[in-house]
């Protein structure tokens, strides 16, 4: 027994170091995702793009879009909401390993489309986008609070804030999965 153990130790110590310059990703069939140099986003599997994926129909008229500061204001709002949420200890973990560049863009497009500010939504539908996240109502509430904070920072009138929330709130059935 002792002899066998000693032999095993000698064999372990004595084995050759792995050869230099081996492409281990290739050996194991791992494909490295590369950000698109133009958009800065990781590639995604193909899906059918449609405004129906936005999860609601746009508001009527253009006054609400104005109250949100038009497309530039809505873009700042979407980006700020994502940044606040990434820094929010209650829900930060949800965003780890997600493509935040893409999220900021698709969230902007969704807000912009719903507020009738002249965008098309090119992201996935709410059910598919949130399918693997295991979100709870408390997570959604935290996100709403961050969105509300971002809207306050941008001086969006409260009634206008609620009109955007009114478009988003019914999506909870596709977002909350446990």
């Amino acid at each position, binding site marked *: 027994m002792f002899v066998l153990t000693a032999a095993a130790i000698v064999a372990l110590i004595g084995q050759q170091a792995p050869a230099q310059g081996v492409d281990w990703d290739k050996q194991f069939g791992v494909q490295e995702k590369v950000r698109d140099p133009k958009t800065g986003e990781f590639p995604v599997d193909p899906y059918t793009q449609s405004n129906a994926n936005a999860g609601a129909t746009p508001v009527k008229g253009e006054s609400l879009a104005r109250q949100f500061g038009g497309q530039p204001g809505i873009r700042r709002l979407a980006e700020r909401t994502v940044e606040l949420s990434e820094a929010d200890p*209650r829900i930060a973990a949800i965003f780890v390993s997600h493509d935040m560049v893409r999220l900021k863009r698709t969230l902007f497009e969704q807000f912009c489309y719903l507020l009738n500010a002249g965008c098309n939504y090119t992201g996935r539908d709410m059910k598919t986008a949130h399918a693997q996240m295991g979100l*709870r*109502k*408390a997570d*959604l*509430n*935290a996100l*709403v*609070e961050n969105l*509300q*904070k971002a809207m*306050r920072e941008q001086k969006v009138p*409260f*009634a206008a804030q*609620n*009109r955007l*929330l*009114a478009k988003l*709130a*019914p999506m*909870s*059935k596709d977002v*909350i999965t446990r």
Partner: protein
Amino acid sequence: MIKKRILAAGLSALALTSPAYADDVVSVPGDKLLLTNGVTTIEGTSGGGMVTWATIAGRETDRGIGVSTHVTVIELPDYGWESHGLSVGIANRIELSYARQNFDTRNVGAALGIGQNYKLNQDVYGAKLRLFGDLVYGNPLLPQVSVGLEYKHNLDRPIALAVGAANSEGTDFTLSATKLFLARSLLVDTTLRLTKANQNGLLGFGNAADAGYSLQFEGSLGYQLSRRAVIGGEFRTKPDNLGLGEKNWFDLFGAYALTDNVTLTAAYVDLGSIATFNDQRGAFLSAQLAF
């Protein structure tokens, strides 16, 4: 150096008391959105000041247990009201509540021969179950719906019987539907109540002719001014089992979430006629501490 420190302390104290800095106040995090736990009714349930809503007390959602306490005073021309209590909200599904009501008859007590400043007291034990729906989320036309019961134990049985009530204890049954219509920043509640209570139970239940349950209606309308502020009005019908001219109740209220955990409610209330003393209109003040 010391002067500087005092100045700094003064400034931070100023910051704490200024609403503009309310978000910086240290608070115990709860999972519910601000004000969606409602305030506390005179019966100890979560709702408006007077009307029981479908909401569940406390600030926790589906995985937590929330707790809420309150104190309420009402100042009327001939009477004084004080109530306080504790409620627990389990998984945003079940609410258990207790409230103690103390009703000071002041000079009326002497006029009625029960004694100057005689206080009528009542314990109210409540249980509420959220059946379905969500106050904020989900189908925008589907309200949050809850059923509840309130067991009321009047501690002044001889007086309740003397004014003609059949009993000094009774149970109310409620069915409430509440929804926040975000597109209009409007909160709407409608509640049906089966009750035998005379003046909330403070004058007992039913009458000598054995008046049974009657169906009463309650409603609240609230407009959200901000995340922290709501103004609105309430309405509540009541039976007149004792033939003392008991009237419907009305109020106009404003509620403000001072911090995530402390909500103050002020209201103008019209409680109509109480024990033949008419025009009982006055001020309602309530403080709620919720986690």
